[in-house]
């Protein structure tokens, strides 16, 4: 009985890739990367933050890298669609949140085996904007005091060194 159960479990594990897998309605880039082999060649929708900038690509299109849950994925989209993005995520800015639908490639034959998403539908779902980053002024104070102390110590050290005969 135990042998039969083990065999059944092994068979189920081996058959896992063949089991039909429903693609969630909207996924994060991190989820897509984690299941890249299962999702290869399928149409799916990802949602995340547009980061950096739009980068020129072939076919008159651009790359928009979309970040979600700590992982970014390149989406190959039209320059017109990318033109709708007003803010890209960089230091001090949260980029526009975009929803991108298209064909996912675990290893794109057109783009040298890169993992990417060839876009059919590209929409901005939420505008990004500036992020307030507070300045810890006390660090300026402590740092300046440290620099002053280091300067005094350096001056004392030099005076002492000059008195020691070579």
């Amino acid at each position, binding site marked *: 009985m135990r042998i039969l159960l083990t065999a059944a479990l092994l068979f189920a594990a081996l058959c896992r890739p063949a089991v039909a897998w429903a693609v969630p309605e909207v996924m994060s880039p991190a989820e897509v990367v984690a299941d890249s082999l299962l999702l*290869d060649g399928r149409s799916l929708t990802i949602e995340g933050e547009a980061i950096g900038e739009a980068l*020129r690509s072939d076919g008159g299109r651009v790359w928009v*890298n979309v970040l979600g849950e*700590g992982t*970014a994925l390149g989406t190959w989209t039209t320059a017109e669609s990318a033109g709708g993005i007003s803010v890209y995520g960089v230091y*001090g800015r949260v980029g526009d949140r975009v929803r991108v639908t298209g064909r996912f490639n675990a*290893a794109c034959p057109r783009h040298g*085996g890169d993992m990417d998403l060839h876009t059919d539908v590209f929409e901005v779902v939420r505008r990004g904007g500036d992020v307030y980053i507070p300045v810890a002024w006390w660090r*300026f104070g402590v740092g300046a005091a440290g620099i002053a102390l280091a300067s005094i110590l350096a001056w004392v*050290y030099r005076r002492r060194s000059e008195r020691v005969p070579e």
Partner: protein
Amino acid sequence: MWLRVDRYDASIVVHYVGLLVLGMAGAMLLPLLTAVLLGEWAAAADYVFGIGVSGTLGTGMLFAPVSPARRVTHVHGLLITAVAWLAASLVGAVPLAFSGNYPTYLDALFDTLSGFTTSGLTVVVDLDHMSLAHNMWRHLTHLIGGQGIVVAALSFAIGLRGGALSLYLAEGRDERILPNVVHTVRFIWFVTFVYITLGTLSLTGVNLWLGMDAVRASLHAFWISVAAYDTGGFAPQSMNALYYHSPLFETVTVFLMLAGAMNFSLHAQVWRGDRREIWRNIETRTLAFNVLVLSLLATAGLAAASVFDGPAAVVRKGVYHVLSAHSGTGHQTLYAAQWTEGYAGLAFVAVILAMGAGGAVSSTAGGIKALRLGVIARSVILDVKESIAPTTAVVRSRYHHLAQRVLTPQLTSTAAVTFILYTTTYVVGALIGGLYGYPAPQALFESVSATANVGLSTGITTATMPVGLKVLYMAQMWAGRLEFVAAMALVANVLIAVLPPYRRAL
């Protein structure tokens, strides 16, 4: 018989490490300037604080008395080097710890040590929103560490009254290019300056064509040039080299990685006009052979994964990652998850072997090094020849490395010992990774990556990994970068200091 390090010896170590810590304060001026110019005032505060802390510590340590009459010995050199790398990392991590991209100081320390050792493993969080000033510092750690922290200090001839050679050799440098050590390190900086300038100009052009604005284009170009030439592997975006989606970009980085993996002495020979040295040198031959074989294996492995359509993509991915691994760079255009998801076969093994082998001696690369592998291979051939030769025959083996040399038992022994130390560390690190519950292949991959100062990852190395594993990888990066000798000298001296006399017969 162990030489006991006395209080005066410790004083010498503290004094010279203090000078190096002071140098760190000076190096932080560049990210501070970046922050001020770009109006990143929160980051500017972090660097003013960092300069204050390192400046105070460094100048304080200068007061440790040193006598002009006593030179820096070989043992001092080993200890100063081993401690300097740790001290530089400890103070270098201070501004990064305030950046908001590291949950704890230990995480900032991990990245700083990884940067200095040109490993490139990272536990950074939300890298895509990191300030340009902090990114500048992360990549500067590659630039300082790539040439060697002590080498960087020596290039300014920091108040050393003799002992420069001891310090130079203690940092894992096997060869002097010029008779004078200070001239040698200045030459190393000159070569570095030329390659990084060429790389920055090329990549700036590529980035501008891609559509980046002038500031980001030039900064990214400089950082990636530093990371590729110094075989570090950090990048300003979480996608690493994949962010740019550009074959041209990858091509430039390949040239920089190869240049960084080459021996500085070889660069000198070629610059003097002796281009034949490239083809005759045992290191370049070994590297070429390894890269060719491992690229074929990696390509075959990726092709077997049935994910790629057509050979072009397979070759591009396979060769890029073998070169990145072999040079010890760690730039990647694959996701960490892909190594375990779909490519955990022959390509995975090929990349582990490439990482373990490493680049050339006296280069910015890590790993066992091509010269040692070449020597070991030659000695195996010599043993076979001796075993089948007549008993009266005298069998010798010659090889070319900057000059014709005869293979001696001592050379073979030194190469074999280093090989054993590296492979043992690779395996021990993998076993400990396994104890933490990670699968053996991933644990081995990460352990080799840390010890050989590569930086490729299967996803184990994150801010959420166990603290013990962070400390282990930090120790592996540090020991691997110093090729174990300086690290072991420090550990031995600490043990001698703390063990009672009757237990010191190590």
